[in-house]
């Protein structure tokens, strides 16, 4: 059984919690720096990236979390989490953790009215179709060396990985499908 952290400031926390429990692992809601020492991996959930970015700074979690990720802690950023991890934001001058070699466009599809869902096979993850839910979602506009593209939708990169870091524009935690979480957990050594 693995201890999977979920950054616990704001957003879709309980949805990840339920899925982690459904696979028989232990979720840990991370709100304090010392909790980083007891987890085997961490999920940065969907929510508002500006809110989470500011709280990372105000709570003293930014520096130790960045260190852990650079040190190899497996991390999965969904939606806002992808924005937190990116080294470059196309339409924002502020970056947050800034550890992954990707450039990301925030709210890339527009307002809530442009939110959508679709189904696709992501070969690296599973041979079956997965439902991909995009809520005011970002996408990746540029990947640098070392980043592997996992999925594109309509010509835009919406899932990628680089070593211990995994990012998705979409929200597997909003569906019943545990495939993506299983894939993330398989990356924990």
């Amino acid at each position, binding site marked *: 059984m693995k201890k999977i952290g979920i950054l616990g400031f704001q957003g879709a926390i309980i949805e990840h919690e339920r899925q982690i429990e459904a696979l028989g692992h232990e979720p840990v809601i991370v709100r304090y720096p010392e909790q980083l020492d007891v987890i085997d991996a961490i999920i940065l959930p969907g929510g508002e990236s500006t809110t989470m970015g500011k709280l990372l700074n105000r709570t003293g979690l930014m520096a130790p979390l960045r260190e852990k990720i650079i040190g190899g802690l497996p991390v999965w950023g969904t939606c806002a989490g992808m924005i937190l991890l990116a080294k470059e934001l196309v339409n924002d001058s502020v970056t947050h953790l800034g550890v992954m070699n990707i450039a990301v466009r925030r*709210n890339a599809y527009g307002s809530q*009215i442009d939110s959508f869902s679709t189904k696709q096979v992501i070969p690296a993850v599973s041979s079956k179709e997965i439902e991909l*839910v995009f809520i005011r979602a970002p996408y990746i506009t540029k990947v640098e060396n070392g980043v592997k593209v996992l999925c594109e939708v309509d010509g835009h990169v919406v899932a990628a990985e680089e070593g211990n870091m995994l990012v998705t524009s979409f929200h597997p935690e909003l569906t019943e499908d545990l495939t993506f979480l299983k894939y993330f957990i398989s990356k924990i050594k």
Partner: protein
Amino acid sequence: MGKYELNKNLAQMLKGGVIMDVTNVEQAKIAEAAGACAVMALERVPSDIRKDGGVARMSDPQMIKAIKNAVSIPVMAKVRIGHFVEAQILEAIGIDYIDESEVLTPADDLYHVDKTQFQVPFVCGCRNLGEALRRIGEGASMIRTKGEAGTGNVVEAVRHMRQLNNDIHQVQAAPAEALMTLAKEMGAPYDLVKFVHENGKLPVVNFAAGGIATPADAALMMQLGCEGVFVGSGIFKSGDPAKRARAIVLATTYYNDPVKLAELSENLGEPMSGLEISKLENKYAERGW
């Protein structure tokens, strides 16, 4: 996945956050910098609407668009209860969420907006479970307890949250054969009553609103079981809005940590001045049904 599901999903992304009333671009930027998960764009905060009297309507679309352009977080705006054309206008300018709000003067004393006719999501107020389920039945994808807006007095927010919790417990504990009678008594759609019976919660996200003025108020509402808070007049009618806004955001995350809450509550400057509920001329919560 349909549009309604996606709209409920957006509310899920707001959970644990604070949605702040703002009346101009400058306030919107202060709210975003403080860590608000969304802003509510309106011309006057509820305490000023209360003071000024007269008919309160949807805000000028130009002002809402200016706020939309100034921030990257979701922007909500209010329409009068039943005013489906105001809602059409807000949908046309690409608003992220519409609040069909009792704070504005109702446009229809019989019907609320048929929210199923819209692509854009709606949040609506409630005082109890029946009212919440009627709004969800009409297509609301998020609920907020009404409280009493513009008072800086949390007592009504607490009353409505407790009532909602009690109603949910009652429905959950009732035998299956009692559900239709409960639906009849509450005036709520049967299928939604059944959902609450089976799941012990609303089918959509629920925030608290109406009277929250301090970090302790926000944490109180979170401990009572809401999933996030709306703060209206409480921030920009206080002595140091930026500082208070930051503190309320942190209090909503650390609502279970009294040591942190003590720290956050220190030296915030003057809170907004509060009003006694018994002395109010208009109770906004009584608008709508």
